């Protein structure tokens, strides 16, 4: 693959990933807020939009795989390390958070949204540090 083709492929996969991520966010918002603002207690519609959300989520994962395969080997290594760090920290923090809830160390219920925020922040931080390391 020549460089022009490679750069075009990377741009194409980034655009694809952005579109799938945006679609997943919209489908998540629909599944979460739909029952409150649009269709009330219609369980069939709720189940339909949850299925749409999962389907679009699978598309987003595939787009992410295509993006990672389109970048060069060192950038793949950076992504792999950042994802490994994110997986480890999220797992450890998630279990500790859940135990803290079960054992009533924390007063409120454990919310998955906190874990998602931690996951995002860890991935961004790890990516930034690793990019700086290999610069």
């Amino acid at each position, binding site marked *: *693959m020549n*460089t022009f083709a490679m750069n075009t492929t990377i741009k194409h996969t980034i655009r694809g990933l952005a579109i799938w991520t945006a679609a997943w966010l919209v489908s998540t918002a629909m599944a979460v807020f739909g029952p409150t603002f649009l269709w009330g207690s219609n369980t069939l519609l709720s189940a339909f939009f949850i299925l749409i959300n999962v389907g679009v989520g699978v598309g987003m994962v595939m787009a992410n795989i295509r993006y990672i395969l389109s970048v060069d080997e060192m950038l793949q290594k950076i992504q792999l390390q950042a994802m490994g760090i994110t997986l480890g920290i999220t797992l450890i923090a998630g279990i500790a958070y859940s135990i803290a809830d079960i054992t009533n160390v924390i007063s409120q219920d454990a919310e998955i949204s906190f874990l998602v925020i931690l996951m995002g922040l860890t991935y961004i931080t790890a990516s930034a540090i690793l990019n700086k390391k*290999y*610069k």
Partner: protein
Amino acid sequence: MKNRLKVLRAENDLTQADLAKRLDVSRQTVNAIETGKYDPSLPLAFKIARLFKQQIEQIFDDEEDKAG
């Protein structure tokens, strides 16, 4: 692992961006290889060797090999 990539690049009057284009990698990757922060895979090392018409061991120096 030490390497002579920066010297070879200079001898061939190439910028990091030029070399990155010829190797189908990012400029960041070329810089990381030159500064010894990243060791390329075997296929990429062969590609570099072919580009400069040299043997891999003439470009990359495995310091552990010498120590052993």
